[in-house]
């Protein structure tokens, strides 16, 4: 029964990774860039939610919405100021800029909120669920996280498949030039992508800090890197891939912690990534990219 407990907490952690990985994979799919500042947007989201709850004393729901609004704006501003001027620059320049934005956000957070660890208040009330006569317990946070992840996945898939903005996003991801010639606003579409990714990052930040309540300016970096790993693991650019990669990564991490070694768990996670990429370089659900001549 402990196996089942570990599995559920793995899925729960993996759900957070999956939500973050969606941001990485969508931005990569559409703007063809790796937004390494994405992890730090999570941290900003968590701080905003913390402030709204602790200083303003408002309800968790309001705090999540506030965090989403702030992160959406932050995502759009980052894209406009840092990435848009580099639209036609070499991809290395964009990558370095993204790392710069990441440090900028971390140090701004350090300046505003200080280096002391903040203890994130509980967002999810309730005792959770007990199964098999109390042998397996699912915490309310884990349950909320998993459910949120499922809802986001369904909503996002429907949005991308069935609305005109979703179709514009797919068109831009396949061929920017042709999309533009069909009257699609490519810059606007990229902005929308950053906005959605950042709003999801805010949700991920709140969920992450609900499960692991230590909030610091560097809180977002390791989950960010792991979610990026998850996106590559599942096949970067693919939305179901990000989901699958995230959840598998969470399960592997928790199992490695439980059955092998707590210290080595991260090393094991990344070792699995290396093995998967050796066997299938495009990731689990990634497709071979044919270069156009």
């Amino acid at each position, binding site marked *: 029964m402990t196996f089942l407990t570990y599995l559920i907490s793995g899925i729960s952690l993996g759900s957070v990774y999956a939500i973050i990985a969606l941001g990485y994979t969508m931005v990569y799919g559409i703007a063809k860039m790796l937004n390494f500042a994405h992890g730090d947007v999570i941290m900003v989201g968590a701080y905003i939610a913390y402030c709204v709850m602790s200083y303003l004393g408002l309800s968790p729901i309001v705090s999540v919405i506030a965090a989403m609004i702030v992160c959406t704006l932050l995502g759009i501003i980052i894209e406009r100021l840092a990435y848009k001027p580099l639209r036609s620059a070499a991809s290395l320049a964009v990558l370095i800029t993204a790392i710069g934005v990441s440090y900028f956000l971390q140090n701004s957070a350090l300046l505003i909120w200080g280096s002391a660890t903040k203890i994130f208040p509980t967002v999810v009330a309730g005792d959770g669920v007990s199964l098999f006569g109390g042998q397996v317990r699912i915490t309310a946070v884990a349950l909320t996280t998993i459910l949120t992840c499922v809802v986001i996945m369904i909503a996002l898939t429907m949005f991308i498949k069935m609305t005109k903005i979703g179709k*514009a996003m797919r068109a831009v991801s*396949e061929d920017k*030039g042709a999309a533009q010639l*069909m009257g699609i606003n490519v810059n606007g579409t990229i902005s929308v992508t950053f906005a959605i990714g950042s709003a999801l990052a805010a949700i991920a930040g709140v969920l992450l800090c609900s499960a692991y309540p230590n909030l610091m300016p560097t809180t977002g970096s390791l989950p960010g890197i792991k979610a990026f790993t998850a996106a590559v693991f599942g096949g970067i650019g693919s939305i179901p891939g990000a989901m699958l990669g995230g959840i598998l990564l969470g399960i592997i991490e928790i199992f490695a912690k439980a059955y092998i070694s707590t210290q080595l768990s991260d090393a094991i996670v990344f070792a699995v990534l290396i093995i998967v990429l050796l066997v299938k370089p495009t990731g689990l659900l990634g497709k071979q990219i044919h270069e156009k001549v």
Partner: protein
Amino acid sequence: MSKLVPVPSKSMIPERDLGKIPVLETRHLGIEFGGLTAVSEFDMTIGRTEIAGLIGPNGAGKTTVFNLITKVYQPTHGTTLLNGIDTYAMNTMQVNRAGIARTFQNIRLFQKMSVEDNVKVGLHNQTPYTMAEGVLRMPRYWSKERQAHERAMELLSLFHMEDMADVPAGSLPYGAQRRLEIVRALATNPSLLLLDEPAAGMNPSETAELMENIRHIRDTFQIAIMLIEHDMSLVMGICEGILVLNHGKIIAKGTPQQIQNDPVVIEAYLGKKKEG
């Protein structure tokens, strides 16, 4: 077959359109790439419902002209007037919204998307609902999406492609991909349709059908069509006015009859007659 409309030799405007503003007019249009002149002094006028042809040997700059008109390249010289409006400050997207749609020499469909979704991308700007209405599935989302679906099906029926609506565009046969590109371009509601080698890779019977279709599109949508084509039977068969381009310059303008008998054109295509 409908009768061809006689075209005045110089301006290429069919007689019935003479009183109106031409759909497209270029004056001294040209572009240099780092000192190399690709196209220069490109002057032309297309009437509101004219079918115009742009021909010339390989490398003459025909696709470059399309790229200039659609602002894929910003011209270094000259002016383009679309429905009487200067397109200088517009970008590619704005030019499309102002009324120019095009297809590509090497097909550029959204391969992974379905046939219907490709057409719906073209319909993007004719599907007016906001992002919030789309996310929250408000009534306007449903009604506008249903309209888009009906319009997409109607456009696909031009080429009898309705039953392929759910197939990924990339898996269509070659000829059908070319036809889908035309449908997608038409979906953007253009007043001028640019076709870049629409008959490339088609067999003679497909080409003949395409000819009928192009004429049918012009008649039903009442739009102007300009096409680049190497297939002379198609160009001579449907174009009311023809422009011949060589080394980035217009070397001849006129009706198919005039072009066919123009010694300058024959020389550009076949080389100079040997003396003696």
